């Protein structure tokens, strides 16, 4: 499961929902894998405002991944200008400016959409309940007495 998915999940136990410590769920004993995906800068830009940055930073630290900057990147930092010679131009005189994903965008994309929890568990910070992740699928089903 992708780390971005954790931005939308909380403990399934009803009484935990009102507690701020039920989000984010804390990954433990995680086996991570990188699943390459194509980058979509427009998506990243429009996703940034609804991304819980501090919680994402916390999860990233808990997983032992390289720390994220203290504040979320600015939308304008997702693209950078590159100079290139247009295809088919042999003179090299018609250099044009193109916009490409910046390193900031690539790093964000890698964390949110390419870093996946393959196996492990997600733990609620409020009640301590552990949700298993198996073959990339998180299991939020509760035993009958907890519903």
């Amino acid at each position, binding site marked *: 499961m992708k780390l971005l998915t954790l931005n*939308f999940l*909380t403990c399934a136990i009803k009484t935990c929902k009102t507690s701020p410590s039920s989000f984010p769920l804390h990954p433990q004993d995680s086996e991570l894998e990188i699943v390459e*995906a*194509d980058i*979509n800068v427009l998506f990243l830009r*429009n996703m940034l405002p*609804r991304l819980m940055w501090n919680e994402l930073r916390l999860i990233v630290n808990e997983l032992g991944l390289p720390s994220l900057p203290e504040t979320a990147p600015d939308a304008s930092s997702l693209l950078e200008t590159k100079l290139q010679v247009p295809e088919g131009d042999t003179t090299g005189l018609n250099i044009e400016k193109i916009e490409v994903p910046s390193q900031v965008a690539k790093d964000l994309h890698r964390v949110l959409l390419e870093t996946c929890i393959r196996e492990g568990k997600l733990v609620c910070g409020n009640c301590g309940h552990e949700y298993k992740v198996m073959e*990339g*699928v*998180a299991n939020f089903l509760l035993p009958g007495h907890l519903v």
Partner: protein
Amino acid sequence: MLPTPSTSHVCFDRVYEPAEDSFLLLDTISSFSEAAFLHDRFRQTTPELEPCSTSPLVLEVGVGSGVVLAFVAANAKTIFGRDDVLALGTDINSFACQAASQTVQNAIHNPSESVFLDIVNGDLACAIRPYLVDVFIFNPPYVPAKLPDYSRHDNYNTILAGQKSTSFEQDSYLLELSYAGGIDGMEVTNRMLEQIPHILNPLRGVAYLLLCAQNKPEVVKQRIKDWGPGWMAETVGISGSKAGWEKLQIVRIWKATLS
């Protein structure tokens, strides 16, 4: 006609096979009138003038084969007028989660189409943070039939140790989950309806719910309108208006802005 996502990899012995109800959802959500409604609701403003609106989150509960979520994700540009849509699903059946995940991944060909998050194994939307869902889709177990005995779920939701595959009883149980809705076929839907006001984005959230005639759709719609000021419930798609006992409809649930 927009293409229907392929589900040829799905084992329909234990995962609900796309049928008339699934196709009614596809047809309704991509209809001219619904696309117009959704385009308007999720309009992107030009970044030069003001900040753009954030990426819409689509949540489908009970994805089954994943055909509906895959369709919405792959055709986001046509349906919503934007292709920065996030697709998230849940299902109580772990085999459906695996199958649907593949269906959605296969359907999104173009990187700029939509972003597929995950399919989570869970009960309804219990694990979803409140007020974040922009588009909610639910094709419930709507058949008036005794609810399955959930005490078997833990054992039946996985391939048991020492077994190579699921048993016949297991498969029957897993399929029952996808159609049996208890009294009036409404027991599961009623639990879902309780959650809807708490998961939908209060400003732009919209839900699509499938009902059959036995669910008493007029009563259900009135109940939704009674949630409070602004709540709306309207039939936006129907099928089986001939002699079929399974007359289906899609109800759109949303909160109108009160001025």
